[in-house]
């Protein structure tokens, strides 16, 4: 996507009733989260502990990854390591070819989205069926997920009804969610039963036991994994937790913060392949180890992909996931995206209100990270020349009393005397939806000079 977040957001907001609906729907999720969190008196302590565990993981990542690999191999799994998206995709293709698989199902995995797995496999003649209902919907529509937990949250039921009518032959005009879900159940049940390989993402991987943990509400991860002889679990290398007991902390936080449920319907722990089956685990770097080197931004690797920051973000709710252009939208996406090459506008797609940092279950200071990214992008000349020059000039103006006073006088004069047409030229983006402040007769400084009440009082 070449257009900026601001342009995409403007387009999203052009249909205001729909934007209101999107905002309200996600706000309800935020409210459910608040209620679920409030049920746990020790909530803030849990967040603190989750954050500390993730710090521990990052500081000892190599140790825990090797421990995990050894335990997983002992359990009978085969472990692969991929340095980047290309290597990951090739590993996946090799496994698929080795098993001569034609029917492949996949449950939700943001990592495979990040690496463009489906697109790559398609180019090699391999079809993958996404089995999460939301993901299946957007796969039918050739769209990207607009939310990491609620991938089809940007769509209205009528649109989904039309898609299902076209792809699954449901009745025209029927957009009842239960009816549509039943149709998807029937359609995907066939896919599950025929599956030769099931691919899943990974929520947590436990170093101590070599198990991978996957959380779903639909049960699609298990329907796939337990039907297909071959199971492949794909994980970013930061998904490691040291100990099984750490899962106690994270399973208490994840679903409550994501959707307001006390826990997902299914929390599955995969240890060993099925009898006569095969189990693969693919550990992916794709930029993560490089991020470790930067103490300023290392925090982003603590993310557990709950989506809580999206639901609470007032900008996300009013601009939609697709407006960001990066595979992970919203506040966390804006600090995970590889900015200096692409997406230089994302750190600016925030009012820095800080709500994201307050809901984050692992206490990532998301809004502070956004602030730091802004500085770095400016330093690396990733912002427009005009903006950089304007900032330089403002910096000079604000650092001296006389220059500052002149600036203020000019601003007040302009607001008071320039014709409205000139004041509200389109270049004045403030004025698109707002009036400029009215110009007072004098500044506070000027008033103080003449009145100087403190002097009067003390003299």
């Amino acid at each position, binding site marked *: 996507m070449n257009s900026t977040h601001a342009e995409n957001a403007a387009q999203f907001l052009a249909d205001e009733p729909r934007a209101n609906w999107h905002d309200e*729907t996600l706000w309800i999720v935020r409210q459910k989260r608040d209620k679920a969190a409030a049920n746990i008196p020790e909530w803030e302590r849990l967040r603190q502990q989750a954050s*500390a565990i993730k710090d521990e993981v990052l500081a000892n990542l190599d140790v825990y990854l090797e421990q995990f690999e050894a335990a997983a191999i002992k359990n009978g799994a085969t472990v692969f*390591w991929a340095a980047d998206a290309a*290597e990951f995709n090739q590993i996946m293709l090799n496994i698929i070819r080795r098993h001569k698989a034609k029917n492949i199902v996949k449950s939700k995995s943001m990592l495979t989205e990040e690496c463009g797995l489906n697109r790559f496999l398609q180019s090699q003649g391999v079809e993958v069926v996404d089995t999460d209902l939301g993901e299946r919907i957007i796969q039918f529509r050739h769209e990207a997920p607009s939310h990491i937990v609620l*991938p089809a949250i940007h769509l209205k039921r009528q649109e989904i009804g039309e898609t299902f009518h076209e792809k699954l032959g449901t009745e025209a005009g029927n957009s009842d969610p239960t009816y549509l879900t039943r149709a998807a159940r029937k359609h995907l049940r066939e896919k599950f039963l025929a599956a030769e390989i099931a691919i899943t993402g990974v929520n947590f991987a436990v170093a101590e036991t070599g198990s991978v943990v996957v959380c779903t*509400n639909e049960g699609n991860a*298990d329907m796939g994994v337990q039907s297909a002889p071959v199971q492949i679990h794909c994980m970013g290398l930061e998904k490691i937790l040291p100990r099984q007991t750490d899962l106690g902390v994270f399973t208490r936080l994840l679903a409550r913060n994501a959707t307001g449920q*006390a826990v*997902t319907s299914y929390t*599955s722990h995969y240890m060993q392949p099925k009898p006569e089956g095969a189990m693969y685990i693919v550990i992916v770097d794709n930029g993560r180890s490089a991020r470790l080197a930067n103490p300023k931004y290392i925090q982003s690797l603590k993310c557990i992909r709950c989506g809580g920051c999206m639901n609470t973000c007032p900008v996300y709710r009013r601009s939609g996931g697709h407006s960001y252009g990066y595979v992970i939208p919203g506040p966390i996406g804006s600090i995970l995206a590889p900015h200096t090459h692409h997406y230089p506008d994302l750190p600016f797609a925030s009012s820095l209100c800080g709500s994201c940092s307050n809901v984050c279950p692992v206490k990532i200071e998301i809004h502070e990270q956004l602030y730091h990214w802004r500085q770095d992008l400016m330093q690396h000349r990733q912002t427009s020349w005009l903006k950089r020059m304007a900032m330089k000039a403002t910096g000079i103006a604000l650092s001296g009393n006389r220059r500052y006073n002149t600036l203020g006088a000019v601003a007040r004069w302009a607001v008071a005397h320039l014709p409205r047409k000139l004041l509200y030229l389109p270049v004045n983006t403030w004025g698109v939806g707002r009036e400029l402040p009215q110009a007072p007769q004098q500044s506070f400084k000027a008033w103080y000079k003449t009145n100087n009440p403190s002097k009067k009082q003390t003299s």
Partner: protein
Amino acid sequence: MSKKTILQAIRRNKPQSTMQSAQEDNYRSPSWSQEECKSLFIKNLQLQGGEIGTLAELQTQPVDFTREDLRAEYANAPLEKLNRLESVLIEGNFGVAENGAIWLEDKDLPQRIIPFITQQLIIRLHPSAIVATMHDAYRKINLTGTGYGVFISGPSKTADIEQCLVYGAHGAVKLTVIL
């Protein structure tokens, strides 16, 4: 394969810190009585869409996997047969009061897919086998020697269409717990 390069990069880049454990295993479980745990479990299970019932009330004749002979019979059953399962009865290991989840593992299941592929899942749980929180649960679980384990806390569900809650996305449409 990139294992070596990745691990090298991590060693080069990771923050300097001693091997320090963040685990706080002194977590104190809430002091809920057996009765409180049970009533919380019921409340939370129902919130997740699960039901509490008795064998007598059931409208269905479940395949009873608490019986060893039936477990053996289904151990090698083909998927087509499993796909025709209307309802099954499984013995749950223990429940979790704070979220209504029940722990099942390989030894309880003739095949791992059974709690998902059946239309209705019925789990029998001893009312004294309910722990307070997930912390307690994970202290209890011993995965060593087990290939698979799962917490189930309700029927399969989705809200992917306009956030409307629908039970029975892919897994069991109904979950009944017999205490």
